[in-house]
């Protein structure tokens, strides 16, 4: 008998962990805040003067303007990576596919890098319009980069039939993206350079309410549309030909996945940089707990991805406090050995 958890036990457990992780993430950091003060500070920030008691002004500011958007961004980016990992693995029909590993995130970073470095040129042309459009330009270019990279890996990887080609194409695209980013670094200004370094390692430190709003809306729409195709994705796991015989419009489905996945990854990368391995580890754990059915895999991967990234970010912020590590280092430390383990498990099937 196969081990599967029911929704009745898995969903409440995951939500409880998510709430717990969020509270800890809000309380912990350069300045530790007690849980009473967390609540009081958040209330004070939302509706100033609602409480009789005195809350330090500083708490309200730190919680409302720094930690809360950062927490939300972590949940959104983690959720995006979890969902995109699950969907990519479904499309490639292989549990090793992941936005970071197969070069999709790198493609997105190049797209975003173009805006950062050459934005100066654009701003001369567009003037103040550029300032107004910048929040949109970054995710747009990143999405185009991600879509292009996905399409390339998919074609080179023989439409998901060849794992070796898929992984090699990922290496090639990452290398190419690395070269492009390195070249940008030469022509970049100091500020642009700092932003770009942050991206290569991945960090949530750029969280503002604008980034939360933009990436949150994109995440909700793209993840929702992908979830709507969950049954078709299940059929696709049987094989492209089998899915077609089951009445699935395979070409349209794949096109939709590549575009939506690219947009979601692009939006996530443009606000947080390349955070690797979340999309690999999360769907794998969900499959172990709940099975490979995408109708459950997609929402649970969103929840678990958010939880994992929030926990990793809390660790990254507090280990060397008040200095902070890029969260990408933590996820790589957790995820890379896991990737090796999966490779080891799959070695017979790959070669």
């Amino acid at each position: 008998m196969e081990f599967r958890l029911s929704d009745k036990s898995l969903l409440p457990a995951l939500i409880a962990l998510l709430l717990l992780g969020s509270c800890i993430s809000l309380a912990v950091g350069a300045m530790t805040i007690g849980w009473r003060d967390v609540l009081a500070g958040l209330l004070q920030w939302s509706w100033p003067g609602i409480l009789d008691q005195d809350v330090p002004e500083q708490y309200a500011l730190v919680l409302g303007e720094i930690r809360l958007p950062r927490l939300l961004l972590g949940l959104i980016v983690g959720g995006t990576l979890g969902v995109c990992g699950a969907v990519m693995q479904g499309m490639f029909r292989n549990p090793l596919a992941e936005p970071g590993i197969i070069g999709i995130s790198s493609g997105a970073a190049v797209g975003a890098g173009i805006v950062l470095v050459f934005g100066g040129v654009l701003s001369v042309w567009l003037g103040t319009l550029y300032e107004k459009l910048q929040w949109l330009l970054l995710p747009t270019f990143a999405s185009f980069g991600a879509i292009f990279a996905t399409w390339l890996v998919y074609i080179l990887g023989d439409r998901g039939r060849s794992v070796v080609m898929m992984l090699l194409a990922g290496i090639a695209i990452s290398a190419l993206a690395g070269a492009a980013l390195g070249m940008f670094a030469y022509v970049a200004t100091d500020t642009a350079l700092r932003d770009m370094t942050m991206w290569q390692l991945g960090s949530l430190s750029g969280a503002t309410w604008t980034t939360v709003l933009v990436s949150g809306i994109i995440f909700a729409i793209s993840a929702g549309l992908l979830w709507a195709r969950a049954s078709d994705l299940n059929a696709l796991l049987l094989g492209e030909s089998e899915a077609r015989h089951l009445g699935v419009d395979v070409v349209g489905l794949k096109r939709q996945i590549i575009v939506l996945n690219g947009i979601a990854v692009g939006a996530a990368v443009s606000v947080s940089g390349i955070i690797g391995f979340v999309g690999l580890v999360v769907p794998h754990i969900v499959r172990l707990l709940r099975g490979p059915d995408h109708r459950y895999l997609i929402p649970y991967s969103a929840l678990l991805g958010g939880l994992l990234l929030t926990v990793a970010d809390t660790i990254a912020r507090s280990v060397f406090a008040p200095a902070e590590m890029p969260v990408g280092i933590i996820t790589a430390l957790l995820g890379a050995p896991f990737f090796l383990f999966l490779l080891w498990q799959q070695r017979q099937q790959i070669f």
Partner: protein
Amino acid sequence: MLLEISDLSIQYPRAASPLLEHISLGFACGEVTALLGPNGCGKTSLLRAISGELDYSGRIHLFGRPQADWYRSQQDHRALARRYGLLAQHSNLNFAFTSREVVQLGLGPGSLSRAEQGERVEHFMQRADVWHLRDRLFPSLSGGEKQRVQLARVLSQLSLADPGDKKILLLDEPTSALDLKHQHEVLALACEVAGDNTAVVAVLHDLNLAARYADRMVMLADGRVQADGTPAELLQPDLVERVYGYRGQLVDMAGYSALL
């Protein structure tokens, strides 16, 4: 004719000569047709062309309508899927679905209630003799077990057709990985399915098995239909030697002819 092929040729790019040349065949409702021929003679390619996965010249009509027409709109495509199923030779499903979940995929997200879905899944898993494997993980099954689970999935898919609708079932070497008992059971099941308003076309390698269960046998070789007729007409040492290059001996036993 539910499935009509006329003047079909298949040429692979960079191949010296066409794989199939000007083939015309029709398959009728209620009949089991065995498609036979030596390795590489184009049996699987023929099935792939019928499914529209391979470029071909000529005409293929499914239920009286050109094959490509069915894929023009999503609605027609889904309607076709309820009446037309193909069991592939191999399955490469790497994800840990249980056998029951695999069969359920045949029913899709459609309009059936959960209870109804469960009933149909059980029914077809019983018929393919895989009900005892229902909670096993599909990737851990043996080749023959996988083949039978996939058969149950395709049969459950065809059960979505409206009552009275005619159906087509293509089987690509459905017995290749099966043990003796299940070879017979699966082909007997194919005959039963044919009785339910269905044209069944099965690629087979075992001439005697084909002769015992099929209503009609078609032999392909060298790009052409070499013979098309009843098992008694085709189970002839001369013909078999011409097609396969191997001369057997016809033996009559207890009412069955067998070529050994």
